[in-house]
C-alpha cells in the first residue's frame, strides 16, 4: 500500500511585494503520514502549518523539495482524488445551502448525482446538519459551517482527510463531535492529517504529531512518547515511612505521602527494582503510571531549547525522533 503522504525537504518562501524580503514559511520539512493514522500538525499561528497543507494540495507551489500524495505529485489530479480537504477560515458561498455545497463538492470530485444524494444524506446526518441542510450557509454559525465543511470534504469517500484548524471557533460540543467523526474514520481505516494551534485539543485524538515552529519541524513522534517523562513514575498504594528513602542506585523520591509516591528511577530497568524494594518495605502497590505532561509543555520546552540552542528533549522511546535544536534544517 502506498504511503498517503510524504514530504521531502519541503521549503516555501513567500515573496513579498516589489522589493519585499519574502517570508520563509517552510524550511526543509520532511515527514510521512502513514496509512490509518491520525496525524497532527501542531504549532503556533504562523508556524507554517497551512502553508504545508497547501503545498501538499498544489494550492501553492513549493520553492524546493517535494511532496507525494499516494505516491503521486500533488499537481496530478488523480492524487487529489483520494483526498478530502477542509481549509481554514473558509467562507463558502453564502446563498448556497449546506446540501448544495455537499452536492457541488461531489460533482467536482467526479461523482454521479444519485451517489451524491445517498452519501450526502448519510454525511449530513452524521455531522448533525440534516435539519439545516436546506438553509443557506450565510445563516450558519461558525460551528455549523464547519460541520457541513466536514461533510463536503468526505462526500467522495476519501482515503486521506486533511483538516486545517477544524475546531477553530467551534463550541466544546461541536469539537467533541468533530473528534468523534475523525475517530470513526480511523476505525474505517482512513487516514487524517489535522492542523491545529490548539495543542491540548488534538493531543487526545492524534496517534502521531509533528510540532512545527517558524517553518521547521521541532519533533515528530507518538503523542504518548512525546508526553511521557522518561524516568518519572507515580505510584499509588499505601506506604510506610520507611519507603521514603530508597537506595540512590534505584531511585530518588520526588514527592512522598502515605498514599502516593512520585519517584525518578535511575535507569529504564530500575522501575522493577523500585517496586521490589517497596514491596520489601511492606508497601502495597495499587497503581503505577509513567508521569506525563501536556503537549503544550513539550512544545514550550522545545521552543525554548531551540531558542537557547540546548539539545532537544529526551524522549522515552526510540521511535520518537527529536531533532537537535539550533540545527539549521
Amino acid at each position: 500500500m502506498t504511503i498517503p503522504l510524504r514530504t521531502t525537504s519541503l521549503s516555501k518562501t513567500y515573496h513579498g511585494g516589489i522589493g519585499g524580503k519574502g517570508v520563509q514559511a517552510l524550511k526543509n520539512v520532511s515527514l510521512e503520514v502513514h496509512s490509518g493514522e491520525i496525524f497532527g500538525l501542531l504549532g503556533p499561528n504562523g508556524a507554517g502549518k497551512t502553508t504545508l497543507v497547501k503545498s501538499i494540495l498544489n494550492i501553492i507551489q513549493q520553492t524546493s523539495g517535494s511532496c507525494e500524495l499516494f505516491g503521486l505529485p500533488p499537481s496530478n489530479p488523480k492524487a487529489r482524488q483520494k483526498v478530502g480537504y477542509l481549509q481554514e477560515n473558509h467562507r463558502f458561498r453564502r446563498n448556497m445551502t449546506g446540501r448544495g455545497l455537499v452536492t457541488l463538492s461531489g460533482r467536482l470530485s467526479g461523482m454521479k448525482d444519485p451517489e451524491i444524494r445517498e452519501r450526502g444524506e448519510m454525511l449530513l446526518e452524521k455531522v448533525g446538519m440534516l435539519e439545516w441542510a436546506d438553509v443557506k450557509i450565510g445563516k450558519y454559525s461558525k460551528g455549523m459551517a464547519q460541520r457541513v465543511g466536514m461533510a463536503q470534504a468526505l462526500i467522495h469517500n476519501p482515503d486521506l482527510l486533511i483538516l486545517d484548524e477544524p475546531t477553530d471557533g467551534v463550541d466544546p460540543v461541536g469539537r467533541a463531535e468533530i473528534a468523534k467523526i475523525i475517530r470513526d474514520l480511523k476505525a474505517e481505516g482512513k487516514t487524517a492529517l489535522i492542523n491545529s494551534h490548539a495543542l491540548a485539543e488534538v493531543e487526545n485524538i492524534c496517534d502521531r504529531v509533528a510540532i512545527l515552529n517558524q517553518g521547521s519541524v521541532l519533533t515528530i513522534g507518538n503523542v504518548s512518547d512525546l508526553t511521557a517523562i522518561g524516568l518519572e513514575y507515580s505510584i499509588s498504594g499505601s506506604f510506610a515511612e520507611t519507603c521514603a528513602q530508597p537506595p540512590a542506585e534505584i531511585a530518588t523520591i520526588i514527592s512522598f505521602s502515605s498514599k502516593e509516591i512520585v519517584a525518578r528511577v535511575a535507569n529504564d530497568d530500575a522501575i522493577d527494582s523500585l517496586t521490589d524494594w517497596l514491596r520489601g518495605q511492606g508497601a502495597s502497590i495499587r497503581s503505577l503510571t509513567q508521569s506525563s505532561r501536556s503537549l503544550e509543555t513539550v512544545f514550550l520546552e522545545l521552543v525554548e531549547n531551540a531558542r537557547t540552542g540546548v539539545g532537544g528533549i529526551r524522549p522515552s522511546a526510540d521511535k520518537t525522533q527529536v531533532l537537535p535544536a539550533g540545527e539549521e534544517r
Partner: protein
Amino acid sequence: MFRGLLLLAFFGTVKSRLMYLYGIVLLVWVGALFVINNATIELNMASNASINGVGAFSGIPSLASALIFLSVFGVSRKIPEMIKPTLAGFYLSKPLSRTGFLSYTILANTLVFSFLILLLLGIYGAFLSQLFPFHISGAEIIKQLFLEVIVFVIYVPLISFLGLITRSGSFAFLITFAVWLVAKILALEEMRGFLSLLDNNLMTQIADVAYYILPRSSDISSMLATAKTVGSDSLNWSALLTSTLSAVGVYSLAVLKFRKMDL
C-alpha cells in the same frame, strides 16, 4: 466535473441580483417597441398612409450592446470569486488540473451568459417580429444574434485573465471597459484621418497593431450591415479572425498564469 461547474455557473447567475438588471433592460427595450408601434399606428391614421414607423430602428444592436455589457460585468466577478483565499482551497483541492479548472470555468460561464444573451434577444426578436412583421427577415436576425454573442465571447478570455491577475471583478471590468473604448475609438473612420494628419509613423503603427490585437467588436457586429452597404455577397471575416486569435492568445496567457499561481 464540467457539469458541476456548469450548473454552478448557471445557478450562481440566475440566482444573482444581476438578473433584475437583465429584466429591466428587456422591459425598457420591449416598452420602447410598443411606444413606437402606437406612434406608428397614430401616424398612419392621421396621414391615412402606411408609414413604417420603425424605419431603421430594430433595437437589436443597442439591446445587444446592453446585454453584452451586463454579461461582461457578470463574468468579471466569477473568477475572482472562485480564487478568493476563503474559497480557493475548496475548488483547487478537487481532482481537476489547473488548466481544466480554468478552462471549464471559462467555458461554463461563456455558455451560461451566451445563452442569456440569446434568450433575451430572442424574446425581444419575437416581440419585434409580432409588432413589425415586415421589418425583418428571420434568417438575418438569427445571423445577427450569433454575431452579437460572438462579440461577447471574445471578451470572456480577456476579462477572465484580468480577473486572475487583479483578483478583483471591478478592476477586471474597468480595464475591459477601457479596452473596449480604445478598440471602439481605433475603429472609427475619423481616427484614421486623424492619424494620417498627425504624420507620426510610430503612432500610426502602434494604433494599427492595437487595432488588430484588441477585440474588434464594432467591426464584428456591423459585419452584415457593412456587407449590405458595400453590396457584396461575401462577408469580411477579418475582424472575426483577428479577434478570435487574440482571444485564444489571452486565454493561453490566463492558463499559463493560473498554472503557476499561489492561492
